[in-house]
């Protein structure tokens, strides 16, 4: 039954909310990609089976929901019990009968399944009290983890499409534009362009036909907020696009989703079908007379297709080569028609902005960066996962208070933000409030919101080389500075990490960087030097050590690093098992030894040694030592 009036929508919404509150006792099993990898599907099935077996559906009105990503992936599978708000981590299917027995029926908590705070080893039962969740303010991710992403009624019970109904039934397209402008929202894909400004320039472009597009390419390695939104709350993205289309007078939309996100494609497709059936998409949406529909387009595996003009070429069935932006895509974009392209997170925020008002959104954040931002906190940090916070939160708060600090309490070295277009931020800048301007000033950028924490076991020359290597593979090859420049830079970096660095390498890198920044056609090439320049700025000494001393201070570059087991080895034998080339010799409880002729310097032993008894030293010193 299609909704065709304001009254009908309100009735639908009321029904949905009633269904939701009619089932106070719920089990929410996170089924985002991360938890699925550790067995969440089996856990959800076990719960459903167990509850059905015991006929609990009738007795206590229990609902089992497979929800989207809670963000706390390394602790998965995650299960939340409502209304208590109890969180269990690392739940395995085989324990489900016990959990149903003790926790659901018996109201008893199983301590071993609770989240353990690595800071003080305390167990925390309440989801809302876990530091990872406590400090979050979820706007774009408001419903992820609370709803079943494949259930439209569940989404509506949590206010999905409330913003759309308000826009269509109570506001004109210009009023919608004004509201988005009031919110001060800036694009969440990385460039941070003011959403309302982009929409206005598209609206003023001549012509009858225009498009709204969603950039679901999320190419930044280390960022997965868009995946979580598309998988966990696809209706939030659809709602935003429909509102945007209404404001712009567009009737066609495309959702460009990365090929590497199959679950996102599935959940979005289900959502679109449901939305069409209920009247949120298609003709005469909610009886307003406005027509709009969306199609999904899968990417082919190219980072460059996250660039807007390349994305539009890909949508048109061509290779993902960007074009010069002297003519804006708001004038001539997809098929040379006026187009608005926004990021997944940007669209996901629109529904909330219209529903709760632009002023509400603008009440959070900093002067120029309003609202909240999703970050993926990953790398060498204890609590890795997805978080959403007001703009202006400091890096220190994110990494230490929410992230719990560096993994294994190793010394903090840097946090990399902004993906391959960003840079590394060192320790003395940790009190930087995170917003668009501040990160750019520090030599990095916001990008997608990826934050990769690095410890002392990270070589910054290797990190720069990693990004150059990544971009070399992803360059489309159209323009000289990027195509040739990246290749040459990669050659210099390969030489550096292999101990073949020469005098003048840093100058050649800097020269190439300048040429690429000024000469490249698109942002991929123009911002490729960022990780290079920021590592040079803050960690130049490491480069010099590679070139002049044939040494890698972090002990990562294999050609330059040798490993040795120190006297405090207690013979626990863990390194022996970890070594992939059987280069370690030793008997349990006795001092172990590394054979340098077999050792490939991969560091697996040092990473697992529980007593910190393995050290690194420059390989050139081996010649001077006696070989064992």
């Amino acid at each position: 039954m299609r909704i065709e009036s304001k009254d009908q929508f309100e009735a639908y919404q009321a029904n949905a909310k009633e269904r939701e509150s009619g089932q106070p006792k719920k089990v929410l099993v996170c089924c985002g990609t991360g938890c699925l990898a550790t067995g969440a599907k089996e856990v959800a099935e076990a719960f459903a089976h167990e509850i059905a077996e015991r006929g609990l559906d009738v007795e206590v009105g229990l609902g089992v929901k497979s929800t989207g990503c809670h963000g706390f992936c390394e602790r998965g599978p995650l299960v939340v019990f409502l209304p208590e708000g109890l969180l269990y981590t690392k739940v395995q299917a085989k324990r489900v009968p016990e959990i149903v027995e003790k926790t659901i029926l018996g109201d008893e908590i199983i301590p071993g399944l609770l989240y353990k705070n690595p800071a003080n080893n305390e167990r925390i039962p309440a989801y809302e009290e876990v530091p990872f969740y406590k400090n979050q303010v979820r706007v774009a991710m408001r419903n992820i983890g609370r709803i079943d992403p494949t259930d439209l009624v569940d989404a509506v019970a949590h206010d999905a499409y409330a913003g759309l109904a308000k826009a269509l039934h109570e506001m004109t397209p210009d009023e919608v534009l004004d509201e988005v402008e009031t919110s001060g929202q800036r694009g969440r894909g990385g460039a941070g362009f003011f959403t309302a400004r982009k929409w206005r320039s598209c609206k003023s472009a001549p012509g009858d036909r225009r498009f709204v597009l969603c950039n679901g390419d999320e190419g930044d390695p280390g960022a997965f907020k868009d995946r979580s939104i598309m998988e966990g709350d696809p209706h939030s993205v659809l709602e935003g696009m429909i509102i945007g289309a209404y404001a712009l007078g567009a009737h066609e939309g495309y959702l460009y989703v990365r090929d590497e996100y199959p679950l996102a494609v599935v959940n979005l497709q289900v959502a679109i079908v449901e939305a069409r059936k209920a009247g949120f998409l298609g003709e005469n949406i909610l009886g307003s007379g406005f027509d709009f529909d969306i199609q999904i387009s899968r990417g082919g595996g190219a980072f460059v297709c996250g660039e807007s003009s390349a994305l539009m070429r890909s949508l048109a069935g061509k290779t993902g080569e960007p074009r010069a932006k002297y003519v804006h895509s708001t004038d001539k974009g997809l098929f040379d028609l006026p187009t608005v392209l926004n990021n997944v997170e940007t669209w996901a925020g629109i529904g909330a902005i219209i529903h709760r008002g632009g002023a509400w959104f603008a009440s959070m954040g900093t002067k120029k960066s309003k609202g909240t931002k999703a970050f993926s906190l990953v790398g060498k940090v204890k609590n890795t996962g997805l978080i959403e916070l007001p703009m202006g939160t400091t890096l220190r708060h994110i990494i230490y208070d929410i992230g719990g600090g560096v993994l294994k309490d190793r010394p903090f070295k840097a946090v990399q933000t902004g993906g391959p277009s960003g840079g590394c931020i060192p320790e003395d800048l940790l009190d930087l409030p995170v917003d668009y301007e501040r990160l750019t000033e520090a030599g990095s950028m916001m990008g997608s919101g990826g934050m990769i924490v690095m410890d002392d076991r990270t070589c910054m020359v290797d990190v720069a080389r990693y990004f150059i290597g990544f971009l070399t593979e992803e360059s489309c090859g159209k323009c000289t500075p990027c195509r040739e420049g990246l290749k040459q830079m990669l050659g210099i970096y390969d030489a550096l990490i292999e101990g073949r660095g020469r005098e003048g390498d840093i100058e050649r890198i800097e020269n190439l960087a300048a040429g690429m920044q000024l000469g490249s056609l698109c942002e991929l090439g123009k911002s490729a030097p960022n990780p290079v320049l920021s590592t040079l700025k803050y960690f130049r000494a490491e480069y010099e050590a590679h070139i002049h001393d044939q040494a890698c201070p972090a002990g990562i570059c294999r050609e330059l690093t040798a490993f040795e087991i120190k006297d405090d080895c207690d013979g626990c034998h863990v390194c022996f098992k970890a070594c992939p080339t059987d280069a370690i010799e030793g008997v349990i409880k006795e001092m172990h030894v590394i054979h340098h002729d077999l050792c490939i310097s991969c560091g697996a032993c040092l990473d697992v040694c529980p007593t910190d008894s393995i050290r690194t030293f420059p390989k050139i010193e081996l010649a001077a030592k006696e070989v064992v």
Partner: protein
Amino acid sequence: MAEQPCVDLSMTEEILGSYPHEEPSLIQVLQDVHRAYNYLPCDVLVRVAEVLEVPLAKVFSVSTFYKAFSLEPQGDTIIKVCTGTACHIRGAGQLVEELERKLGIGANETTEDLKFTVKTVNCVGACAMAPVMLVGEKYWGSAKPARMSKYLAEGVNDEN
């Protein structure tokens, strides 16, 4: 092209039937074709060019530009090691090396018996569980080289 075996084109016709016959459909068609045949056979590409009315040179250009496509038959089970930043610093390289030791092939290579293809992928979005690898459709998070045999055994695609 001459060395490729003939393929059953009926699957191609079915796929082409479900999209508008124009250039914008190209990448979606190629993805469905790739899923159906496990690679992009050249006979199929010729037919796709014909039906979508796209010059064959451009179809070939698109087929070689995007990393999702292979023009050679792939293994029954595709192993993807994520080499995104978070996975890189948590040891993705060691996983690729272990695979080379176990299977004798590097990235973008297929075993002689066509059982496995190894690919590196630039971010599957499971960064909080780095390093991540996929064996077929199965994700393995916090993967360790020492457990490679287990991953290979349990994730294998049994349907031929």
